C-alpha cells in the first residue's frame, strides 16, 4: 500500500514536471526557445535605438548611398533578430527561410543567456564587419556605445558568466552573419566596370544629368536578395516611349511637361514635401534609414519589446533591401532618361530641378520602392490608418510632419520626387507598385510569427476586401 502510494506520488510528479516542460514547448511555436533565460518578450527593445541612431549618423557623415545603407541595415537587423530568437516562444528563426542563411550558431541548451547582451554584441560586430571599409571614421562612437551598454548590464546585476556566455554567442553569431553577407555578390560588383549605353538612336536611355555624375551601382540588381526569389520577381516595365528632341506629343513628354509645370508653380506644401523626402545621402540616413527612424518612434512610444521590435526591423529592412535590388535591376534594364534631360531637350534648356537629380536611371523610383515595401510591412505589423508624427529631420532643421498612415507617408514620399523634379509619374507609381509587391511577398510567405500570420492582411488582400 505504501509502495503503491509512493509510486502514485512519483508518477504524478513526473506528469506534472513533464507537463510543465511540454506546456512550455507547446505554448509557443519556436523550437529554439530557451526557457532558462529571461524571455526577450519581457525585455524593452528601446536600447536598439541607441545603435540605430549612431548608425544613421554614420550613414550620413560617410555619405553611404541608399543601396549601401539598405544592405547594411538589413544584415544588422537579421543579426539582431537571430540574436534574440531563442528568447521568444512565438517567433521563428529566419534560418532556412532567408536565402542561404544556414548553420547559425545557437545558445547552449539549459544555459542562461541575456538577450540584450547577445543583441548588443551582434550589432556591434556586424556593423563593424559591414562598415570595415569606412573605418576608422566611426569606430570610437561604436566602441563607447558597446562599452556603455555592457556596463549597464553589469550594473543591473547580471552574473559575469551570463555576460561572458552571451557575448560569446553574440560574437559567434556576428561572424556567421558577416560570412553569410559575403556571399551576396556585393564584393564582386565593386570591381565591375560599367559603360553606359549610348543614347544615339535610343533617346529614351538615361545619361548623366551633370558633369560630375557616374552611374551609381549599375550591378546592384545582380545581388542576392534576402527573400524574394530574384530581381525579376517584382520587375515591371510600363515605361512610356520617348523619341528625343522634337517629341512633344509622346506620353513621356507629357509627363515631363507635368514635372515642369508643377515646378513652375510649386506650392509651399509641395516644396516642403520635396525637401522633406529628399533624404539626401550626404545629410540624412537615406530613404531606408528614414523609414527606420519613423518606426523607431513606435519602438520608443510603445516601449516595444525586443522580440517584436526585432521582427519588424528585420522584415522591414530585408524588404527594403530586396525592393532596392529589384528596383535597381529595373533601372538598368529599362535605362530610362530623367525629367531634366527631356525638359532641357524639349521645353527649357536651362531648367534645374528643385532636388538634385541622382546619378542613375529614373525608372523606377528608388524612394518609391523603399517606401512601398516599408509601408506595406509596417501597415501589416503595426496597423493601418495609424496616425503618427515623424520628426526624423529635426536634426537638419526641418519641421516634423504628420501622417494619417504609413501608406499615406509612402504615397507622399513617392510623389515628392515629382515635386522635386527628379522623377516622372511612371517612375513613381511603378516604383511604389514594385515596393508593395516585395512587401506583400514577405508578408505572405515568410513565417516569423505563425499565430499572427493568418490575421495579417497584405495590401493586395485589402484591395480585394
Amino acid at each position, binding site marked *: 500500500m505504501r509502495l503503491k502510494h509512493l509510486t502514485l506520488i512519483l508518477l504524478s510528479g513526473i506528469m506534472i514536471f513533464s507537463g510543465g516542460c511540454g506546456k512550455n514547448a507547446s505554448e509557443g511555436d519556436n523550437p529554439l526557445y530557451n526557457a532558462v533565460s529571461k524571455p526577450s518578450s519581457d525585455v524593452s527593445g528601446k536600447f536598439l535605438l541607441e545603435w540605430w541612431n549612431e548608425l544613421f549618423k554614420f550613414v550620413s557623415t560617410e555619405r553611404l548611398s541608399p543601396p549601401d545603407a539598405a544592405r547594411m541595415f538589413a544584415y544588422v537587423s537579421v543579426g539582431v533578430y537571430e540574436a534574440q530568437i531563442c528568447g521568444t516562444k512565438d517567433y521563428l528563426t529566419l534560418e532556412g527561410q532567408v536565402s542561404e542563411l544556414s548553420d547559425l550558431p545557437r545558445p547552449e541548451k539549459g544555459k542562461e543567456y541575456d538577450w540584450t547582451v547577445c543583441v548588443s554584441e551582434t550589432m556591434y560586430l556586424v556593423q563593424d564587419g559591414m562598415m570595415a571599409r569606412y573605418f576608422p571614421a566611426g569606430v570610437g562612437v561604436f566602441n563607447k556605445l558597446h562599452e556603455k551598454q555592457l556596463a549597464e548590464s553589469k550594473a543591473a546585476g547580471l552574473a559575469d558568466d551570463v555576460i561572458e556566455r552571451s557575448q560569446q554567442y553574440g560574437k559567434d553569431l556576428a561572424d556567421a552573419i558577416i560570412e553569410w553577407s559575403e556571399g551576396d555578390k556585393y564584393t564582386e560588383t565593386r570591381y565591375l566596370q560599367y559603360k553606359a549605353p549610348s543614347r544615339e538612336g535610343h533617346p529614351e536611355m538615361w545619361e548623366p544629368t551633370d558633369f560630375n555624375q557616374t552611374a551609381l551601382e549599375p550591378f546592384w540588381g545582380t545581388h542576392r536578395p534576402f527573400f524574394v526569389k530574384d530581381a525579376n520577381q517584382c520587375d515591371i516595365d510600363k515605361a512610356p516611349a520617348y523619341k528625343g528632341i522634337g517629341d512633344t506629343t509622346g506620353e513621356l513628354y507629357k509627363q515631363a511637361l507635368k514635372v515642369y509645370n508643377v515646378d*513652375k508653380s*510649386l*506650392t509651399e506644401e509641395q*516644396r516642403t514635401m520635396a525637401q522633406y523626402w529628399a533624404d539626401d545621402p550626404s*545629410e540624412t540616413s537615406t530613404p531606408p534609414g528614414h523609414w527606420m527612424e519613423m518606426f523607431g518612434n513606435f519602438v520608443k512610444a510603445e516601449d516595444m519589446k525586443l522580440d517584436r521590435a526585432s521582427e519588424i526591423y528585420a522584415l522591414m529592412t530585408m524588404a527594403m533591401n530586396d525592393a532596392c535590388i529589384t528596383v535597381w535591376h529595373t533601372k538598368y534594364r529599362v535605362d530610362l532618361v530623367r525629367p531634366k534631360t527631356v525638359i532641357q531637350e524639349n521645353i527649357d534648356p536651362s531648367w534645374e530641378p528643385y532636388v538634385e537629380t541622382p546619378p542613375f536611371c529614373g525608372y523606377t523610383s528608388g524612394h518609391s520602392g523603399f517606401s512601398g515595401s516599408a509601408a506595406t510591412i509596417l501597415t501589416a505589423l503595426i496597423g493601418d490608418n495609424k496616425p503618427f508624427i515623424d520628426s526624423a529631420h*529635426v*536634426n537638419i532643421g526641418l519641421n516634423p510632419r504628420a501622417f494619417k498612415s504609413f501608406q499615406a507617408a509612402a504615397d507622399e514620399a513617392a510623389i515628392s520626387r515629382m515635386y522635386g523634379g527628379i522623377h516622372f509619374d511612371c517612375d513613381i507609381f511603378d516604383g511604389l507598385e514594385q515596393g508593395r509587391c516585395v512587401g506583400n511577398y514577405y508578408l505572405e510567405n515568410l513565417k516569423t510569427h505563425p499565430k499572427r500570420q493568418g490575421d495579417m492582411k497584405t495590401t493586395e488582400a485589402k484591395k480585394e476586401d
Partner: protein
Amino acid sequence: MKKILNISLFVAFLSLIAVNGNSQVVMKDFLSANHVGEVSKSFNNNGNSLFYKFEYVSTEGARINYKLHLYKDKAMSKPWMSFDVLMRNLNWTYYVDITMKKDGADKVAAMIFKKDLRWSRVKYSPHPDCMRMNPPFYERYTIGAESESPEVLFYSLLNNFIMQLDKNVDFNCYAGNM
C-alpha cells in the same frame, strides 16, 4: 622610403587644403553675423542700386533665423521691406530660404549650395502676379576660385541669390505683406 613618406605627407596636405577649402565657404562665424550687400542696376529700384541686409536673429538647433531687409537708399536707414529667412548649414549643403508672404499664402525662395560641387541654384516660383519673368529663369551659379577668401565666396553666394531674385521677382508686390 623617405621619398614615399614625403609624397604621402604632401598628398595628405593637399587633401586637407581641399577639404578646408570647401568647408570654409560657409564658416560658422558667418552664421551669427549680419551681412550687408548691394545689387547694382536693380530691376526693382528703377536701375539704381538695391541694398540689402541679412540680419541675424537666432539659432535654434539646425535652424538659423535671419531677417532680410531690402533698402532703396544707400544709408539703409529704413527698410523698404523685410522677409523672414531660414538658413541651414548642413554637412555638404547650405540652404537659404526666404519666406515671401502674400494674401495669407507663404512661398519660399530657396538657394541651395552644394559645398563639394561649389555651385548653387535658386528655385522660386513667385505668386503669379509677383513674377517679373514668366516663367522664372535662374542661372546656376558656380562659385569662384578656391584661392579667394571664404568671406568673398560667402558674400558672392548671397549676392548672387538676391541678384537672381531681383531679376525674377517684383518685390513691390510683397509690400505690406511682411
